[in-house]
């Protein structure tokens, strides 16, 4: 047991810091560290810089383009990204479909898709939920019927984040209606430009369009775009959700919010003093900080156990539950810290220059956007209630 960093670790930390100081575009940093959605063009520009550095997919096996970083190095990099306000790559390609492809995909799929994820040629979205299939995901009804070398896909997906930016979607579809719910599902990679696909935007409580409905009307998908075996898609889907859970704690991002709160508390005035002198407020912040430490060291302990050969079942669901609860409490407290300036709010599209000309102090521009958007955090990736079901079954054997 040892928490110390080696000289190599410290050198690595300096390397990451220097990279971010010199290469992170200011506009990207500004959007991201405010808690606003980074526009696609900026996100892609940043991902290409990361790719050039070879840091697009640190967790991937080295043979597919991973960095081969140790657990400690991954931790250090995440901390530095968080501290500097640097976004990580969009998760749909790198963290979700990428690992499914290199674990279960054909050689042809690996050769074609993995490089395109790394160089940001493809923007992926996730076709999982349907209007009738939320927490009960396995009840999904979108059908794929075999026709020669193609499947013909009909149905509808919903809550598809950033589908409007995507040129690729990975989809769970039903290929056997007679089998048990989990046993008739296949995993398809579908080009969004295929005829018969329609995207309809959904505007969120944050007045932004991140969510969408995606309709499939006789969409022809080549059979070679199926990952793994037919009707085994549920296995790959669960594998993907497991990966998603373990990348969802977002400790470094939450730490940045803690620091931001401390800065705001040193500026906002209350009762002739500073918010930082308000015991009730600071007490709330301290409690979140302690909870965040508990999350951070639990994530580190799990990474350490994993590196030592332990195979988890549903333990990482803890990281999802606690991480998202903390994200919500922090963004709620950020809004609270603004006092009256917690009220003004307009969507990014409502006027030009939203990023730097909102009313109130500069730091008031962002917390509400984040607070609203992150109400979804305890819902997406499997609701926190479903995560508890999974732990109960897989870990506690209840």
């Amino acid at each position, binding site marked *: *047991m040892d*928490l110390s*960093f080696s000289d190599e670790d410290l050198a690595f930390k300096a390397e990451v810091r220097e990279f971010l100081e010199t290469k992170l575009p200011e506009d990207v940093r500004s959007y991201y560290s405010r808690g606003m959605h980074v526009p696609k063009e900026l996100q892609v520009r940043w991902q290409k810089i990361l790719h050039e550095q070879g840091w697009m997919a640190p967790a991937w096996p080295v043979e597919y383009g991973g960095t081969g970083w140790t657990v400690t190095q991954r931790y250090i990099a995440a901390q530095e990204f968080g501290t500097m306000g640097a976004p990580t790559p969009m998760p749909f390609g790198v963290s979700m479909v990428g690992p499914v492809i290199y674990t279960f995909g054909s050689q042809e799929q690996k050769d074609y898709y993995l490089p395109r994820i790394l160089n940001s040629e493809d923007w992926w979205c996730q076709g999982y939920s349907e209007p009738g299939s939320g927490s009960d995901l396995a009840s999904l009804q979108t059908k794929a019927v075999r026709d020669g070398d193609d499947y013909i896909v009909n149905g509808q997906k919903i809550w598809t984040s950033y589908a409007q930016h995507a040129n690729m979607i990975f989809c769970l579809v039903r290929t056997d209606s007679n089998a048990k719910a989990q046993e008739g599902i296949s995993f398809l990679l579908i080009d969004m430009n295929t005829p018969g696909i329609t995207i309809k935007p959904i505007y969120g409580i944050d007045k932004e369009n991140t969510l969408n409905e995606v309709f499939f009307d006789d969409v022809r998908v080549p059979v070679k775009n199926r990952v793994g075996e037919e009707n085994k898609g549920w296995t790959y889907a669960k594998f993907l959700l497991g990966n998603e859970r373990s990348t969802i704690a977002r400790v470094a991002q939450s730490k940045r919010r803690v620091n931001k709160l401390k800065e705001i508390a040193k500026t906002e005035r209350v009762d002739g003093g500073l918010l930082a002198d308000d015991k009730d407020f600071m*007490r709330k912040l301290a409690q979140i900080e*302690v909870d965040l430490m508990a999350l951070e060291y*639990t994530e580190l302990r799990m990474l350490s156990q994993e590196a*030592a050969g332990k195979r988890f079942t549903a333990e990482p669901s803890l990281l999802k539950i606690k991480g998202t609860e903390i994200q919500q409490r922090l963004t709620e407290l950020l809004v609270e810290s603004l006092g009256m300036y917690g009220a003004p709010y307009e969507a990014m599209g409502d006027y030009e220059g939203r990023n730097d000309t909102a009313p109130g102090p500069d730091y008031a521009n962002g917390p509400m956007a984040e607070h609203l958007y992150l109400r979804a955090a305890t819902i997406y990736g499997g609701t926190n*209630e479903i995560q*508890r079901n999974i*732990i109960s079954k897989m870990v506690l054997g209840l």
Partner: protein
Amino acid sequence: MDFELSDEQTLLKDSVDRFVQENYSPEARLKLTETDLGFSRDHWKTMAELGWLGMPFSEEVGGFGGSPVDTMIMMESMGRGLVLEPFFSTVILGGALVAEAGSEAQVEEIIPTLIEGNLMLAFAYAETQSRFNLNDVETTATKSGDGYVLSGHKIVVYHGDTADKIIVSARTGGESRDEAGISLFVVDRDADGVDIRGYKTVDGQRAADIRFENVKVGANALLGTEGEAFPIIDKVVDRAIAALCAEAVGAMTAANEITNEYLKTRKQFGIPIGKFQVLQHRMVDMYMEAEQSKSMSDMAAMKLCFDDVVEARKAVSATKAQVGKAAKFVGQQAVQLHGGMGMTDEYSIGHYFKRLSTLEMLFGNTDYHLNRFSAAS
């Protein structure tokens, strides 16, 4: 950076686990709590023979030079069985104060005998007005001839009625809450003017209120430099708090295992009660609290190895705040999930609840440490 045990540490853990398994069935423990002593001298001898009493002390005085991580491992395993012997009071608190503050002669006199199992210690620090504040000391030590005269009232001194020597914090200078002016003294239990009133505590252990009425001690009773004991107390107590947190982690883990098993076996409405989602989610919350407490306890033990006072304080107070919150939740919900069975003295779960409750309070409750963490950050 890693959280894995070395081979030696695994052996140590296995050894303590085995001792607990063999000696601490709920029935055996309940019997011990009903004796006058409150623990077993035979067990104490076994601990000495196994070398446990020397774990944190340097090799020069016959110890093993163990780190805070080794302490954490032992305390966690002892926590699983709610062990009653005064390992914490004697080794982690009293012994550490002597080792840190004492002169070479004092260390030579006390530590080897302690390691052999022939000397028990207790630390008398709390007073009626002090609550958890270690520098709120009104017990006085006045210079008199070559030595000192001690007067004051110390409360809830764990193992205070069974210890051979009491280590007392007393004021040799300064005002009542100053950090400067606090000194440490080693006082024999049967010295003139020492009045010890022992009693049982709710967690199955024993403690004492101790009055010092003009107790004369020699100059050699002073541990370390006069008036400069506070930083040493602070350091030793931070390590002690980490040890108590580890004990709580062990107790929570055991309480969760027992409760989880109960959910699988107890049937109502024709099915095991663990099939009810509301109980499943409660159990998951208990599991998550214990896991996060374990992570924090490991972290605190590792941070204490660095010898950075401020970092240690932050780590320890954050850990106590997490563990305190978790200990209350797990202890109370473990009783709740057992229904009526949880209320019986005969069944083990109530004993876990009671020890977890005092662990939340000892050396500062959750509120206290949240404030201390906030002030240090």
